């Protein structure tokens, strides 16, 4: 029993760490409870717009891979996403950005998703989901 419990603990610790690696820490924009959809278990890739001081960004992260916030970095991000679209044309892009990040730094990531679907061809449709945080229900 103890052996099995330890194995379960190790398993969940590992899973939690893998999940954390996908989701960079940031303060997501908040919406009212119950007004946004839950994430489904469909094919998706999480693009993090890494927050930096004064509403800037430190680049775009997909898992452990970081693309810098330059035209070249955005082009490489689009190439990376297009590989995903080639593997699965129904791929969903989950866009995570800090609430204080300026739109000028988020927009290139959105554009990269569109470009990626176009590069992939084969009827790939860009599915872009904006990741938000749900306000606590007891909030005023």
């Amino acid at each position, binding site marked *: *029993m*103890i052996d099995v*419990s*330890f194995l*379960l*603990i190790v398993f*969940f*610790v590992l*899973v*939690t760490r893998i*999940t954390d690696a996908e*989701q960079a820490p940031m303060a*997501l*924009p*908040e*919406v009212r409870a119950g*007004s*946004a*959809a*839950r*994430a489904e278990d469909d094919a998706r890739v999480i693009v993090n*717009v890494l927050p930096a001081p004064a*509403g800037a960004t430190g680049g775009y992260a997909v898992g452990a891979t970081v693309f810098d916030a330059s035209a070249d970095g955005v082009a490489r991000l689009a190439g990376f996403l297009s590989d995903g679209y080639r593997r699965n044309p129904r791929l969903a892009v*989950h866009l995570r*950005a*800090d*609430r*204080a*990040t*300026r*739109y*000028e730094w*988020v*927009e290139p990531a*959105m*554009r990269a*998703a*569109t*470009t990626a*679907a*176009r590069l992939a061809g084969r009827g790939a*449709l*860009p*599915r*872009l*989901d*904006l*990741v*938000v*945080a*749900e306000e*606590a229900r007891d909030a005023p």
Partner: protein
Amino acid sequence: MRRDLRGIAERTRFALSITPMIDVVFLLLVYFLLTSGFVSRERLLRTEQAPQGIERAADAMTLEAEPLVIALARGDDGVRITLPEGIAPVRDASALEVALRDVLLSPASPRGMFAADHPVRLAPAPDVAWADVVRAFHAVTRAGYRSIAFGGGR
């Protein structure tokens, strides 16, 4: 003999059974790991189509409806929302939702100006905070519009 039996009974009474306690503790630990890992406040706002703006190539043969442009600019006290003429000016995202719902064409309001699939373009200025963009986008979707694109803000 009687004293020995009483001693055994007392020892038995105070013996601590460790195994079931460890089992329970581990089960609780597993339970808390499970719940802390899966209870997430993260949700999704789905965009029906990808942001167009820059990427979309113009098709000269297609006559598209003029989009309803909602401009977002950074103001002194938050975001400034500019709507086309004919729609009441608004100060924040909540008011935007109400104003857009008022002009939505539906069986309930046949005098509305725009159908639910009328193209809406959110045009944030580059320096607008992402939270304000998301709030405006959410207001448009909650008002009932389905075709929302990003881009074009200056």
